[in-house]
Every structure is written in C-alpha cells, then in structure tokens.
C-alpha cells in the first residue's frame, strides 16, 4: 500500500481492462517519473474524450458533433448501408478505402449466453433509418463468429419483405494463408463464395 494519491492512481489504473495490479503499479510509477507536461497532456486527453465524444445520432458511430464524420460527408453514397457491430469496425472498413457508403453501428452482437438479445442493440433505429433513407442495399458486416452469425440471421429475417438488397460480407480463406491449414467450415464457405476470375468482384459462380 502506498500513500494517498499514488495508491488512488494505482487503484484507478487497475480498473482498466487488461491492467492487473502489477501493471497498474508500473504505469503509476512511470507517470510519477514523467514530466508534468506529459502527465497533464494525458489527463487532458482523457478529460477531453469524455467531454466531447458521443455517439452519432444517426448511425451510432463515435462522433464529436451531433453526427459523425461519415454521416456529415455529402460525398458518401446514401443508397448503400453497412451494418457493423462496433465503431472500431467502421475504422477497419474505412482503412480498406473500398467502401463509400454509409454505416450503422449496432453497438454489439446478439449473444444469448451473455443475455444480450436484439432489444439491446440499435436494430429498431436501423429499421427506422430504412424507412426514411433511400437505401437500396444493406451490407451485414458482423463478425463471422457465433454471435455475428446469429445477428446476421436475425437482421436478415427483420429485413425480409423490404425492398432492399441484403448482402453479407464474404468469408473464406485469408490472404497469405495455406489451403491445407484451412478448416472445413472456412473452406466450404470459400467454395460457396467463389468468384469468376474474368469478372472478379462482380459475378458469383453458382
């Protein structure tokens, strides 16, 4: 146990995800020895992020204004909507520079075992957006794991009967991977989603 302020700092750092008591102690002593300017900059960054960052009123992405950067951009394609689990998935897709449509962040995925059902996600807001906006295609970009698949299946049911094209991100072999290490599920999906080389990216082989 340390005196007052040092122990308080260790306790607060220890509440962060992935930071145990020893790590918390190490970070606290690093900050104690750091310049006041550096420590103040860190403190201000934490305060600023809590004071200014909120969720976009339209897509639930992280935003510093009423709407996020993507929703404010008039050059984005309003007819395509990509549905993702978390705001960090938006960043991952933006890094590809392949996608120019809009996003909708669900705020998680359906996980019955954790008690997270459809009502805990921004699904109703998604349906309201489809009523209001000129969306022609919904791309479901949830993770290809059990929670993401359950969410995709649920969304697909919800969008049944609407005049929108519903697509799911392809899943299959990773670039740079070996075929003989691929598991049966991944490999069979790669076969189902195989593409015609002559019209790559535009035609599916059936």
């Amino acid at each position, binding site marked *: 146990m340390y005196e007052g302020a040092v122990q308080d700092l260790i306790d607060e750092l220890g509440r962060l995800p992935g930071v145990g008591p020893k790590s918390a102690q190490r970070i606290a002593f690093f900050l104690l020895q750091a310049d006041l300017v550096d420590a103040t900059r860190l403190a201000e960054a934490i305060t600023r992020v809590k004071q200014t960052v909120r969720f976009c009123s339209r897509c639930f992405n992280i935003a510093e204004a009423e709407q996020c950067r993507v929703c404010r951009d008039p050059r984005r394609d309003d007819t395509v909507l990509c549905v993702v689990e978390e705001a960090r998935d938006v960043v991952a897709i933006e890094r590809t520079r392949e996608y120019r449509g809009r996003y909708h962040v669900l705020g998680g995925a359906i*996980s019955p075992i954790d008690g997270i059902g459809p009502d805990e996600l921004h699904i109703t807001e998604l349906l309201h957006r489809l009523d209001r906006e000129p969306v022609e295609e919904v791309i479901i970009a949830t993770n290809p*794991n*059990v929670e993401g*698949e*359950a969410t995709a299946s649920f969304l697909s049911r919800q969008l049944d009967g609407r005049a929108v094209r519903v697509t799911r991100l392809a899943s299959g072999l*990773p670039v740079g991977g070996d075929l003989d290490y691929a598991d049966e*599920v991944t490999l069979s999906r790669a076969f189902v989603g195989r593409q015609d080389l002559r019209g790559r990216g535009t035609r599916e082989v059936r």
Partner: protein
Amino acid sequence: MALYREQGIVLRSYKLGETDRIVHLLTQGRGKVRAVAKGVRRPGSRFGGRLEAFSHVDLQLYEGRNLDVIAQAELLAPHAVVREDYARSAAASVMSEVVDAVAQEGERDNALFLLLRAGLQALAAAPADPAVFVDAFLLRVASIVGFHADTDACAVCRRAGPHGFLSVKAGGSLCPGCAPPGTRMVDLEVLEAVRTLAAAGEWAVLPRLARERPLAHATAASYTRAFVEHHLDRRLRSYDVVPRG
C-alpha cells in the same frame, strides 16, 4: 506438461489478450475443460473456425497449471447450420449455458456429453421452431444431474399416477393428498407433454408435440423453465432470447 487427446464440444469462449481465447469445452473423458486457444482470433490462425461455439472437435491439449492449452483441433461436426440460424443458435446457447453450469471439471459425464451431442444434432436437423428441443434438453439435463421431473407417480408418496397437481418444488406431479394448498392443477395433456419432453432419447416426436398440442406445450415449457431454474438454482440468461411460436 502432459499431452492428452479428447473429443469435446465447444460450449462458449471468451477473449483473452490480443489474439487468444479461453474456450469452455464439454469433453467425453474429462468433463468440463477450460483451455486456452492461442492466436485463435488472428485471421491466419491454424485453428480457423474449428473452435467456434457448438463445434464437435477432436482435440490435443497440454495440461497447464490453471488452464490447459489447445495444441491441435480437428472438426468432427461443425454444426454450422445451427450457428448460422438465429433461432437455432439461440436454442443451442441455452443448451451450452446449462451444460456449462452443471458440468464439473475433471469429472467424466458421458451421459451429459451424449445428450449435448444429440441435442445439437437434433437442432441441426430441426425445422424452423427449435424451442421445443430446448425444453426437452433442459428436463433431460435436470434428470441426468438428479432432478427428474416425475409425472408417473406422486413425487412425495410415490402413489401411482397420473395426478393432476404439478409442483416445481416437489419435482413433479402430486396426488390430492400430498398437494399443499395453492398447488397448480393442470390437464393430463400437460403432464403428458412434460413426460414426452423429459423422456430420454426421443427427439423426433418433439416437433409434433409443439405443432399439435401448442397450449399443452406452452404450459409444459413454462413449468420446465421454473423447474430447471429452481432445482439448478440458476437463472437461464439465454432462455428469453429463444424465439417461440
């Protein structure tokens, strides 16, 4: 570190660090095993999609101090159709949740393993409404761990039935002499539904029960949930997510 080989069914998994997962498995020979799958969240992982929930896998593991480490995994049955359908995935989640709760580490329980495997196989082959499989699974798990819902005789005095009083606390039907005031009285059709759900081995008849006797099934389902939550002393978090009707 000792190396061992086991067949197991993945119950659930948690993220660990940057790329790992802690996987809960029900194995055939060692009961519940908690093991680390290193690098499984990396896109090029050698495990790929083999350790997704509900997969039946053949594993090679190292014994660890707290958690074992998965060295190799081969798919025996992926149950991918269960994962890819919302209703079936939710139903399988209830099965996994209850097995995760009752299975003990280091205690072989072949009956529980075979029941889970059969339950997942039934879901994989099931029509659109899988809720009835969940109800049957819950009563059968309860029966394996020692809480059989008895509808053939009075649960207290053992007088041969059928008896129309159904009690969660007493563990089945009660005769008029043993039923305390306020005990719920049900139709014989409901008792028959509970008996069908709890009967070991029968999966193929279940969709017909839900289709032809929906009211009796609904009452039996609500009894099942109360029965299992009371006797296992645990609230089933995933139960409400399963679509019904």
